[in-house]
């Protein structure tokens, strides 16, 4: 029997599963780099978070007798992102808890894929960050670090020094790591966030394969860079316009690249219009800037993105694309009162 459906009768070969697979592939280089510099424990953490995310989703669909959805790869991507957001030597129950929380509370309880309002990976990460703050802030030295290097992340060491009232000259020097270290990924940090280079490469791959567009990463990183360049010196008496070295250091650390390229571009929880995406990105940049320099946390990418996730429905409501052939409705002139 021949099928009768509405047009179109041909479809693009890109479906949800393939897109998620591409995201997974784009994340892999940075994750592998994390394993290389932080050792096999990092690999175990990654594997645990992926496995627990996928298994949770599978069991959930069995319990609720719904369709098994693990084939769409979305749970695997969530798990991988959670793993990449863990410090290398984190106790194993933490990534598992984060994955379970992400899948059950953040994703499933709101209706599953497509219905959650918060990025599941970020929700899971923030949940364990505030539950196990000290374990989540204990970082270890990268394999290729110099002897004198500190195992605190560059941003948190700067923040600690600042709160001790030390005189500030250059953020990049104070942290003990060079900009090049941060770019390649030779700094302490979460497993998947250290190598800006590989994360940017993954982002370019996703833009090339049209899984995502440039709007959110560029507006996010751009607005954050601008605000940091102009205002971040104020907190430590550097004045306006910080040196280029410090600016690059700020961009390559603190999970900004991971957040801006892979977390802020989550389809479900971000606006769908190009202008809305730019507004979203600028909002993320602004809140990251606020939290990082004027808040108590050293970083702030996760919270900034979650804040903007909350704002997404509002952005969607008010920002619409300009319609083809749109003409401003002419208001009928009010008739003069007789």
């Amino acid at each position, binding site marked *: *029997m021949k099928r009768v459906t509405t047009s179109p009768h041909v479809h693009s070969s890109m479906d949800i599963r393939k*897109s998620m697979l591409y995201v997974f592939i784009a994340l892999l280089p940075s994750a592998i780099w994390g394993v290389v510099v932080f050792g096999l424990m990092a690999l175990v953490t990654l594997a645990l978070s992926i496995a627990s995310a996928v298994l949770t989703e599978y069991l959930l669909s069995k319990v609720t007798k719904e369709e098994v959805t693990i084939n769409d790869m979305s749970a695997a991507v969530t798990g991988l992102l959670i793993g990449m957001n863990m410090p290398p030597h984190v106790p194993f129950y933490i990534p598992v808890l984060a994955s379970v929380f992400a899948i059950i509370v953040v994703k499933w309880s709101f209706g599953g894929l497509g219905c959650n309002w918060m990025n599941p990976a970020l929700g899971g990460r923030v949940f364990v960050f505030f539950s196990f703050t000290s374990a989540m802030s204990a970082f270890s030295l990268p394999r290729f670090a110099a002897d004198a290097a500190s195992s605190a992340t560059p941003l948190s060491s700067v923040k600690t020094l600042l709160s001790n009232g030390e005189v500030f000259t250059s953020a990049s020097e104070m942290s003990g790591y060079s900009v090049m270290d941060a770019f390649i990924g030779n700094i302490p940090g979460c497993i998947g966030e250290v190598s800006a280079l590989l994360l940017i490469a993954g982002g370019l791959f996703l833009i090339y394969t049209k899984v995502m567009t440039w709007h959110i990463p560029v507006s996010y990183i751009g607005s954050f860079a601008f605000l940091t360049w102009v205002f971040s010196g104020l907190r430590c008496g550097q004045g306006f316009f910080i040196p280029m070295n410090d600016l690059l250091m700020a961009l390559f650390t603190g999970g900004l690249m991971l957040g801006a390229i892979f977390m802020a571009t989550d389809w479900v929880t971000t606006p769908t219009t190009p202008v809305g995406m730019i507004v979203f990105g600028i909002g993320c940049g602004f809140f990251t800037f606020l939290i990082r320099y004027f808040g108590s946390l050293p970083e702030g990418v996760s919270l900034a993105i979650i804040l903007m996730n909350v704002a997404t429905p509002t952005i969607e409501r008010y920002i619409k694309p300009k*319609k083809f*052939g749109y003409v401003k409705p002419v208001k009928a002139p009010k008739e003069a009162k007789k």
Partner: protein
Amino acid sequence: MSRISTFKRGGVHPADKKYLAKDSPIERLPLPAELIVSMSQHLGAPATCLKKKGDTVVKGEKIGTAASFISAEVHSPASGTVTEVRKVRLPSGVVADALVIKTDPEQPEMFTERFEWKDLSNEELLAQIKEMGIVGMGGATFPAHVKFNTGGKPVEALVVNGVECEPYLTADYRSMLERAEDTLEGIMILAKILNPKKIIIGVEHNKPDAIKHLEDVIAKKGYPIEVYDLKMKYPQGDEKQLLVATIGKEIPSGKLPLDVGGVVCNIGTAYAVFEAVVYHKPLIERVMTVTGEAITTPKNILAPLGTKASEIIAYCGGFNTENVDKLVSGGPMMGFAFADEDMPTLKGSSGLLCLKGEPLNTGVCVSCGKCVAHCPIGLMPNRMFRNISNAKYQEAMDLGLMDCKECGCCAFICPAHLPLVQGFKLGKKMGRKK
């Protein structure tokens, strides 16, 4: 002179699959023993039927007459006898009256005498186009005498649509190669009626030999026509997109091309006008592409209107597989699927596709925004679809549902394979009811 341009916003790039039928010259289909001629082959009111069961008809005789201002005449494609007047369901889902004509084995030789048209007035030309039942051949089948009657409004540009942006279809391409001289004369007839400042033929970049051939003939004849080489992008063949690509003007929402000084007409329409005016031949046959992965030999054929799909499929060697997924009248992006193999060809049937394939799994919307990015009209298909799914038709209309022209870019690109176009068709129907 040619240049490369395209429309700005949205659009998609489906695999064009034109290689299937591209190189087969137009063949005339042998006259079938039975034709089913629908009275509704055009946009607007169905024609009023002039014949009844048992009547004899002559090739080219008028058998249906325009029922209102926007309607068109219908002529008999062959001599024969009316054996039945019955209802048929057309691919679009419309049910219309149709004459079943048993054709005579001997057909008269007709429409060979040439008539001079240069001395005719515009009114006479338009009357002739109306009398011959010419409609837009691109698929929308808008009655030509209504479209070309500009009512004295100035025309900046007559844009002839040789884009054929629908994948698979090659009927216009073959026509441009094989019937260029006559088609161009048809364009000159239209130019006489419209008196445009500029005449442009838009052809997409994947048909370089058609562009070359048209330019050669234009140079030989000395016609004031320009051929524009357009960058490939679907839906460039839509008049809104084509006008942006050629003369850079946006038709305001709810307005007509004429409001920005443009008139768009299909290559096939220009040829039909030529035949109507020069040979006094009514629109009783058309070129269509029979193609798709499931047909044995893809072909471009000249078939009388009312030919059953089964006859055409048999002529092209039948199906090459057991599991044909879909039969489609028209192109794959906007054509209509049908299951009945007795479906007759109509004035707007530009193609008959026999597609292989499997049903796609429909997922849920993941707000990826691809539909928004690719909508050539700048709508938000995701939000309109959500509203329609929840029976909020007014909200969908407020988002611009009525501006949607169902080009299918959103549904083509949707990674969840949502039936967006289906939703919009439903939404428009329900929205209009209120």
